């Protein structure tokens, strides 16, 4: 006799190999857990809609963190509460994918409160499945934002009190007040009627996404017999008696029939367009370079250090930008405290003919010390035969090392004479370029013209470069 068989949907793996261990056929969920039912109806819908090869499930932190053991579809496991943010990225970068954010109440309503509200408010074209079991199940039954008043949990052993812990949060109600969501409904797993309704609701939420209608949110009141310390059957009764009166099961918002499918036009920018927009378009002068840096050093590993406000970070950025103009490999890594001015700051800059392995500079071969503490801090780290430039206006001692090339320049005084102490960094760059010839001064000036945000200060900065060059020619050649 022929029979039509209803069995495990094909969107599940035959064997749950990823689970490991000896039992590869059952889920890790407890007896009577609602996740199993929801997984089953979701898997069935995925098969029926023919979307198995383009569906990505974003699993949360919680018991369903292991959803990827079971579903034979794409899966990304997000950090706690961040599933809607990850889903946003997945959907926007691949708009033909069907992205489902699957989250529990601790994940979605507590730590992930901002992510879900903002994903909903943006109207991301994703489907969010929110499993509300009024407890933190995986971690051992602690109180969740959705825990009922009076409900005893590990962390509310005398029952949740509204005075102390507030009232349970109603996510469907909150989300349905937002403008963008297309479909918001709450269902429950209590009897066949409600399970059947959940089936329909999940399918509608998926269909909305397939039709590019926008954000759909399905909250499912599900049992956690272990966390609630009840039998499976009693758990379903508890949902009906305790949860549904507070969390009404109904459609909160459905505008899916009234809205047109959305199409977000994706603009793809070329590298050149991006650089143009940022005002960083290379002048395209030098093609290849074969530079001989400081004799034996194949890579300039620089440490530029000083007070915050002396422009040490800017000097580093400028040097890196200048070197990029000459098609060198560069890196720039700042290190500074929270202060805008007055603290100490330093940056590491690497310039090389070859790809740069690490942007960190523990042993620089060039140290620019704009103040005394910087010389104290970094002098000993400089490589043998390296270069140390000190700002002799405020560094009141000589370089102690005799195995390095030491250059003293009264940077602050010179800048002050020019009428702007802030250009001390550019004088220093001019001096550095004259000493090392790493970058052509003409390239350096073009870069300043292009990169300096305040164009009224271009001239004085260019003049500062010349001053630095002049000082080295007059004093060190």
């Amino acid at each position, binding site marked *: *006799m*022929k*029979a*039509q*068989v*209803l*069995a*495990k*949907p*094909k969107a*599940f793996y035959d064997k749950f190999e990823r689970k490991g261990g000896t*039992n590869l*056929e*059952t*889920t890790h*969920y*407890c*007896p*009577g*857990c*609602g*996740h*199993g*039912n929801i*997984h*089953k*109806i979701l*898997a*069935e819908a995925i*098969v029926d809609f023919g979307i198995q090869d383009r569906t990505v499930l974003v699993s949360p932190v919680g018991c369903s963190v292991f959803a990827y053991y*079971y579903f034979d579809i794409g899966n990304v496991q997000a950090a706690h509460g961040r599933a809607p943010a990850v889903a946003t990225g997945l959907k926007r970068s691949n708009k033909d994918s069907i992205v489902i954010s699957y989250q529990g109440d601790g994940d979605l309503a507590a730590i992930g409160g901002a992510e879900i509200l903002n994903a909903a408010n943006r109207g991301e074209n994703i489907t969010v499945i929110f499993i509300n079991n009024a407890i933190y199940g995986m971690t051992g039954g602690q109180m969740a934002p959705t825990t009922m008043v009076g409900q005893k949990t590990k962390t509310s052993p005398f029952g949740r009190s509204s005075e102390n812990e507030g009232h349970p949060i109603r996510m469907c109600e909150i989300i349905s007040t937002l403008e963008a969501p297309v479909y918001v409904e709450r269902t429950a797993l209590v*009897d*066949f009627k409600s*399970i*059947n309704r959940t*089936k329909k609701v999940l399918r509608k939420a998926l269909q909305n996404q397939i039709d590019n209608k926008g954000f759909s949110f399905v909250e499912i009141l599900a049992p956690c*017999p272990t966390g609630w310390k009840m*039998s*499976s*059957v009693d758990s*379903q009764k508890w949902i009906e008696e305790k949860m549904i009166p507070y969390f009404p099961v109904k459609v909160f918002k459905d505008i899916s029939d009234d809205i047109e499918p959305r199409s977000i036009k994706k603009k793809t920018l070329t590298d050149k367009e991006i650089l143009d927009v940022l005002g960083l378009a290379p002048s395209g002068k030098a093609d290849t370079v074969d530079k001989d840096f400081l004799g034996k050093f194949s890579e300039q590993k620089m440490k530029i250090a000083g007070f915050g406000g002396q422009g040490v970070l800017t000097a580093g950025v400028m040097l890196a930008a200048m070197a990029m103009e000459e098609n060198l490999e560069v890196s720039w890594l700042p290190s500074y405290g929270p202060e805008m001015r007055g603290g100490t700051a330093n940056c590491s800059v690497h310039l090389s003919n070859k790809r740069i392995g690490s942007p960190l500079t523990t042993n620089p071969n060039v140290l620019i010390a704009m103040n005394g503490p910087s010389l104290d801090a970094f002098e000993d780290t400089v490589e043998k035969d390296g270069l140390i430039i000190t700002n002799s206006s405020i560094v009141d001692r000589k370089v102690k090392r005799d195995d390095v090339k030491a250059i003293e320049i009264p940077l602050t005084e010179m800048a002050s004479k020019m009428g702007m102490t802030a250009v001390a960094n550019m004088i220093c760059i001019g001096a550095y370029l004259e000493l090392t010839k790493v970058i052509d001064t003409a390239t350096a000036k073009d870069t300043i013209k292009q990169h300096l945000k305040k164009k009224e200060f271009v001239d004085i900065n260019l003049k500062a470069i010349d001053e630095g060059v002049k000082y080295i020619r007059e004093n060190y050649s």
Partner: protein
Amino acid sequence: MSNEIVEVDFQLPAIKVINHLCKGCGLCIEHCPKNCIEFSGKFNQLGYDYAQYNGEGCTGCSICFYACPEPGAIEVYKKVKGE
């Protein structure tokens, strides 16, 4: 395996509880409108008193299939339409 046509040698409609996958939560027993599922009184390898079909009365309504949280523990066999 979902909605496939297979050859069977038992009376239709019927359900099968795959003994070693059942966790004994009892939800199929609770929701079966014909009360034709029962605890077996025996324990499977997982240590659960698994459910079983008592052999008569199944209408193929599939309520137990959806009430069961375990993906593969219950299979429902129905007559093929038109045959």
